[in-house]
């Protein structure tokens, strides 16, 4: 059994939907240390020797296995940079559940900066789920600055679901990707900021091989005095197709900056960008109110649906 506090258990449920020790390969990191780790026949997790972090090596052909690598910080003032490298073997088909929760009840800022590199082998399929969550009543900030690098070989598939709904004060997310021929990347980002939070999300996806494709979609809600910036650039260096979309609901005194970026360096590159920012439509509120919801309840339903 893992030795975890009640707060840590709650955070693990929140970020990784973990209610008990996961089956299969996992590495649970709490307050800068490994609280538990397991490898399997096909998935080996080892500590890095030069820097803080782990290597996750997935054997070629591994099918239907899930790796959990959640991080929980419950000490105020804790700051860490962690380097995790994922080597996904040819033809593997796996799910990686990451996520980071910070519970800060103190006056000092807590920060986790995860640097993740994915090397996705030929024909491999990888689903990556990352959920960020903050809690605690302290005045110290909860800060998460993830850097993600994705290198996809021929005909590989990478699906990334990034969720940050509550409690993270400051985020600077940077994601870069390079795709070889036939590789496909799908990104679904869901973000809600509130109070004085700030969230920046930058993508730079290079489609280097013919028939490669990327679909980067962000849905976000900015409430209160929060600030968001979504900056997605897709670069088409081959006969490829790229699509980025930013769909945002703005509320109260929130600020949203959407920066579309498309760069075509090949005549057969087909790139599309869509961006829309607007408040909740009055007729949507009215419809739900005619079903008996108050305006506030209607607002919550609309936001929950939008970010579902």
């Amino acid at each position, binding site marked *: 059994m893992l030795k975890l506090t009640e707060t840590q258990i709650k955070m693990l449920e929140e970020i990784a939907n973990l209610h008990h020790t996961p089956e299969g390969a996992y590495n649970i990191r709490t307050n800068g240390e490994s609280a538990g780790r397991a490898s399997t026949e096909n998935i080996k997790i080892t500590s890095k020797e030069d820097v803080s972090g782990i290597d996750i090596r997935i054997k070629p052909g591994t099918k239907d296995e899930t790796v959990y690598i959640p991080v929980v910080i419950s000490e105020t003032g804790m700051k860490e940079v962690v380097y995790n490298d994922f080597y996904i073997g040819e033809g593997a088909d796996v799910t990686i559940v990451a996520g980071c929760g910070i519970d800060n009840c103190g006056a000092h800022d807590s920060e986790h900066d995860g640097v993740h590199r994915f090397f996705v082998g030929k024909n491999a399929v990888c689903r990556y789920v990352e959920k960020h969550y903050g809690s605690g009543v302290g005045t110290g900030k909860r800060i998460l600055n993830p850097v993600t690098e994705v290198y996809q070989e021929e005909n590989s598939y990478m699906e990334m679901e990034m969720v940050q709904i509550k409690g993270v004060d400051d985020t600077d997310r940077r994601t870069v990707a390079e795709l070889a021929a036939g590789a496909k990347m799908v990104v679904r980002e869901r973000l809600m900021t509130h109070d004085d939070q700030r969230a920046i999300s930058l993508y730079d996806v290079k489609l280097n091989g013919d028939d490669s494709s990327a679909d980067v979609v962000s849905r976000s809600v900015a409430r209160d005095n929060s600030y968001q910036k979504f900056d997605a650039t897709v670069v088409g260096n081959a006969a490829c197709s790229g699509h980025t979309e930013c769909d945002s609901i703005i509320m109260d005194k929130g600020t949203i900056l959407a920066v579309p970026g498309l760069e075509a360096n090949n005549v057969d590159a087909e790139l599309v960008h869509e961006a829309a920012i607007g408040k909740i439509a009055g007729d949507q509120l009215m419809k739900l109110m*005619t*079903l008996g919801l108050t305006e506030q309840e209607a607002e919550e339903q609309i936001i929950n649906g939008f970010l579902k």
Partner: protein
Amino acid sequence: MLELKNISFSVREDGMTKEIIRNVSMTIPDEKLVVITGPNGGGKSTLARLIAGIEKPTEGKIFLNGEDITEKSITERARMGIGFAFQQPVRFKGIQVLDLIRLATGKHLAVADACEYLSAVGLCAKDYIDREVNSSLSGGELKRIEIATVLAKASVLSVFDEPEAGIDLWSFQNLIQVFEDMRKHIAGSSILVISHQERILNIADEIIVLKDGQLITHGSRDEVLPQLSGDTTAVAGCCRLGGLAELRELKGEDFRC
């Protein structure tokens, strides 16, 4: 029973006051299907929105079962038992049909029970229950889902604002069936439909004609329908909706809009 007493509604437009509804009084009795018809721009939809609480009257009072609801909000009226189907149903990104039906019933309905409301409006439930109520749905599908939410709400008074607007004739055939079924199960409730369609007028207990914001006629179907067939009101409306084939069926092949 819904009573409207001396309802007027006006808006300010280009610095001028424009009267949309002028001193309208009417009663929608229990267990009746009442259709309000009349030319476009006559104030029908405004009247429906005044009943639902989306607009507030400039003058007059509205009573539901004897209680003054004039100052009640949309939410309060909904909770008191008024249902409203929008002429142009709203789309929601991410909200599924099942979510809307559950919100309408106010409880965590089992999927199988929610499906019954979709079946009632002629939709194959399993194909729609998990669909998002977004732009992937056609106008006809959306309209039927809108009606399903009003059915699910099980209101004392259900108001439908031009249920035929924006749908094709094929969907319209199904829609008529839905209203015929609702008419059969009206016990304990009443239905108010804003419509131009003769086939909806044909199943009404009472018909009200509204023109230029004023109530022109209110009577039983047998009293009002003969007056209308000599008039172009319903016919013109039907033509605008592209219901030519249906009108020809009713009035003969030589009929032209």
